[in-house]
């Protein structure tokens, strides 16, 4: 990554700054990037420190306080069992963010391996990888995840597996495309001419040069997976009670939407804010990494 970006911005190189440092500087100056980073840090902090932050036990029913509108005692109101929606939303962050981060990490690793192998070695291997990508991409995301959940059964681990599988072809496709572009560049050819081993060239030289689009994509896909998981939860195929994700809390409140909209609306807002922050950060990051955009 560093080589290619620096080669294109020679002015910066004269000052001895690495491309990573330039990107970081730009990110720090970007208001949306900083704001979204703050939001994400808060969300993550709340998820990790849920037992400390949540005012009540998320699963404890307060039967005398069913479907209470937001008030001083229950800031986000209560659901049909009288459970505190604020606490449920805070604990829900744990499940939703875990699924997002873990699923994307797994999907990215498998996708990167497939994309690298296909793009770098070509031939039959590439044919197989490309076919696999085509077939998987012929399924709308939600549909593929749903089908996998039905087969696997719905619990946290299977939700992660199903959503991870749906992201694999997306990563594989982007990595494969980037590898095809990098593969023919002079420094890779030079490496091969010098007799470097294929695998070594692939890992040491090709992979770092396709890292930027992968990082951007991972950020944006974390958002996609969070929405995907929310959709699964909304349809009743998410994690099983008493565990709750943002999507499944929304689903709990669906029947009471007319009398008690807060049950569904607050977790919905949590999803929207998180996804908005992830998208904004991903976009800002992409701009910061783009050497053509110099101010």
């Amino acid at each position, binding site marked *: 990554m560093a080589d290619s970006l620096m080669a294109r911005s020679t002015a910066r190189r004269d000052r001895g700054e690495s491309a990573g440092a330039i990107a970081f500087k730009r990110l720090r100056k970007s208001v949306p990037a900083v704001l979204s980073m703050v939001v994400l840090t808060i969300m993550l902090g709340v998820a990790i420190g849920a037992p400390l932050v949540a005012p009540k036990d998320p699963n404890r029913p307060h039967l005398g306080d069913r479907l209470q509108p937001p008030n001083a005692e229950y800031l986000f109101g209560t659901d049909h069992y009288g459970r505190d929606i604020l606490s449920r939303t805070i604990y829900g962050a744990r499940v939703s963010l875990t699924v997002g981060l873990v699923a994307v990490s797994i999907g990215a690793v498998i996708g990167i391996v497939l994309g690298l192998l296909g793009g770098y070695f070509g031939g039959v291997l590439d044919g197989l990888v490309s076919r696999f990508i085509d077939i998987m991409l012929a399924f709308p995301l939600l549909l593929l995840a749903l089908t996998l959940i039905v087969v696997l059964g719905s619990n946290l681990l299977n939700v992660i597996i199903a959503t991870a599988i749906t992201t694999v072809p997306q990563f594989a496709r982007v990595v494969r495309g980037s590898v095809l572009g990098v593969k023919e560049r002079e420094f890779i050819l030079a490496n091969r001419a010098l007799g470097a081993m294929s695998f070594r060239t692939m890992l040491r030289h090709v992979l770092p040069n396709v890292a930027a689009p992968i990082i951007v994509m991972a950020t944006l896909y974390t958002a996609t997976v969070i929405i995907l998981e929310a*959709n699964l939860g909304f349809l009743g195929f998410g994690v099983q009670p008493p565990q709750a994700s943002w999507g499944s809390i929304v689903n709990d409140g669906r029947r009471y939407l007319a009398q008690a909209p807060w049950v569904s609306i607050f977790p*919905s807002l949590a999803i929207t804010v998180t996804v908005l922050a992830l998208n904004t950060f991903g976009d800002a990051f992409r701009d910061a990494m783009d050497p053509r955009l110099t101010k």
Partner: protein
Amino acid sequence: MLKYSLYRIVTSIPTFVGVVSLVFIIMRLVPGDPALLILGEDASREAVEQLRDQMGLNEPLLKQYVDFLVGMLTGDFGRSLRTNQPVLAEVMRVVPYTAALSFAGLAFGSVIGIGAGLVSALRRGRPLDYLVSGFATIGVAMPIFTLGMILLIVFSYNLGWFPAIGAGTEGDVLDRLRALTLPAFALGLSSAALITRMTRSSVLEILGQDFVRTANAKGLSQRVTVLKHVLKNAMIPIVTIIGLSFGRMMSGSTITETLFVRPGLGRLLIDSMYARDYTQVEAAVAFFAISFIVINLLVDLSYAALDPRIQYG
């Protein structure tokens, strides 16, 4: 163009077969015996064996697979485990609802998205641009059920303009349209956000080109310049994103049909999944995937029609 179309159609056949095979494999991985599922836990061993024979479950897997492929080609997707009716008939019964929803949603989405994106690009850096871009950014981040719920709360529960559930009375076109409005709007707004962003950036890129300056210099009115020169040239990425929105529509229709309790392919899929009616699930998933392939193909083919510079051969 014809040659390219044929080429694309032929090359999508392996994808098609792959998709159908994947559905077959996934559905065979489902734990439990379908025959036992139909007959219930108390069924006698002989009855289960007999039904397994009838359903072809005792055949070798390869023969089952070939039968499955032949069945698909001849339109025989098997019978529902729940109702014992042909699953394809059930799919066909609900497809019109989903088709109406998707097309109405796409129409809303395209009109709003292209319009808002164009206005935003032409007023770049002005308050209107910030307003539109802001809404679009939030819209992209909002799950479709959130949009749907907000619409429900405002326009159905509070204002009472539209029904909250159902697809309207059969035969009453006005009632049908009224019931279609909110779900289609929810579906449309969610893709409108994406289309707005794509239109804005695509139009901005074209606005900076020489031929636009020429058009302005030779005194064309802004309307003519925008419609005949800018929009036409900005269409390819817009059409791509509209095509991609179809995938979103399919996932989205599943959510909207559930939220608004409307009949449709998505609703059928979810209900069959709840009921563990695997043959029906198989048919619905296959139908979704096949329509998705066909739509992607159509989007690809439309590029050539939009941009004469693209030559296939």
